């Protein structure tokens, strides 16, 4: 009985994978319905990824739009359709990093060098995390968490977020 279920389950997964690849192939041919389907499936994950890198809606919105524009425009060049999600997330991550750089340049002072970010980082990581539920209710502290995340080394942030996002789509 158990064996049968497992078999059923794995063939369902295989069918899903096949269906998924068909959608990508159709999008590669420029099929607009397939574009829409890919967007529907991945817009939220891409949004989460970009938001974790950028920390606000308006920057995230720009990156989400640009990600899908680039993906749709270059999709015909992706040979291995199995690598689609990794490719998509990599583009979103590259665009987020670029966006962050231009934003930082706009502010003139590199974010990582601002002293308040260092102290907020320490604050958020040492004092208040013992009760996460309470932390989230405290708006001021949430702002400090956002600042602390902004002040983290980009590479570490990117690695953790990519890991998390890959986990979401497994």
């Amino acid at each position, binding site marked *: 009985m158990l064996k049968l279920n497992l078999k059923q389950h794995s063939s369902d997964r295989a069918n899903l994978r096949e269906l998924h690849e068909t959608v990508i192939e159709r999008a590669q041919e420029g099929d*607009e319905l397939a*574009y*829409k389907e890919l*967007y*529907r499936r991945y*817009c*939220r994950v891409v*949004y*989460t990824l970009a*938001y*974790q890198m950028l*920390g606000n*809606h308006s920057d995230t*919105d720009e990156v*989400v*739009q640009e990600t*899908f*524009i*680039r*993906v*749709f*425009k*270059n999709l015909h*060049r*992706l040979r291995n359709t199995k*690598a689609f999600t*990794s*490719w998509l997330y*990599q*583009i979103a991550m*590259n*665009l987020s990093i*670029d966006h962050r750089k231009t934003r930082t340049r706009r502010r003139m002072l590199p974010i990582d060098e601002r002293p308040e970010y260092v102290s907020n*980082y320490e604050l*958020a*990581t040492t004092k208040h*995390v013992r009760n*996460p539920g309470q*932390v*989230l209710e405290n708006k001021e502290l*949430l702002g400090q*968490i*956002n600042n*602390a*995340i902004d002040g*983290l*080394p980009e590479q*570490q*942030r990117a*690695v*953790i*977020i990519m*890991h*998390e996002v890959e*986990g979401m789509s497994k």
Partner: protein
Amino acid sequence: MDCQEIGKYLLDYLDNETSNSISQAVEEHLNLCNHCRSEWEAYKKTNMLIQLRNVPQPEDTYWNKAYAAIAEKLAARIVAMPIEHDAGIVDDFLHGHGQSTNWHKRISYLISVAATIIFIIAGYWMSNKIAEKPDEEYNTVIVVEPEWRGMPASQNLHTNFQPDADFSKFSGAAIGIISPVSQGLRVEAVLK
């Protein structure tokens, strides 16, 4: 296990996804190695902060609006630059990593510099010819890069061709940077 191997397991260890033996090896290594321990501490803090920040979801109408904007911009860009390669952002992945991409970028850069120089020289040569024989009609054929498809008719600029002022624009147009190809002197872009 050495530092490099430990590094591969750190994130899985963070998620409690490593086997008992791996977890034990990681723990033993972290106790002995300052470098890996500080990396591990940084991952832990980063991960915790990211988990603490819940991503506020935009309102439901956002997704359709964003898609409409994407479709509109995509259509506009496909018309303007049909085969634009988003070097760096998209190509890192498509071409593998690191060096090959750098080579690719460097070669395309060299090609565009060479093309610009050739067109500037050609421009001077042509403007001299124009100065020599002002009454003659010219029928110059410019062969552009095979991938360049030009701009839609409505976006072509119909300017009077003035050799000195317009040649920089003109050479730019020929290598696909900007659009204006002068119609005044019947300079034609021939598409392969």
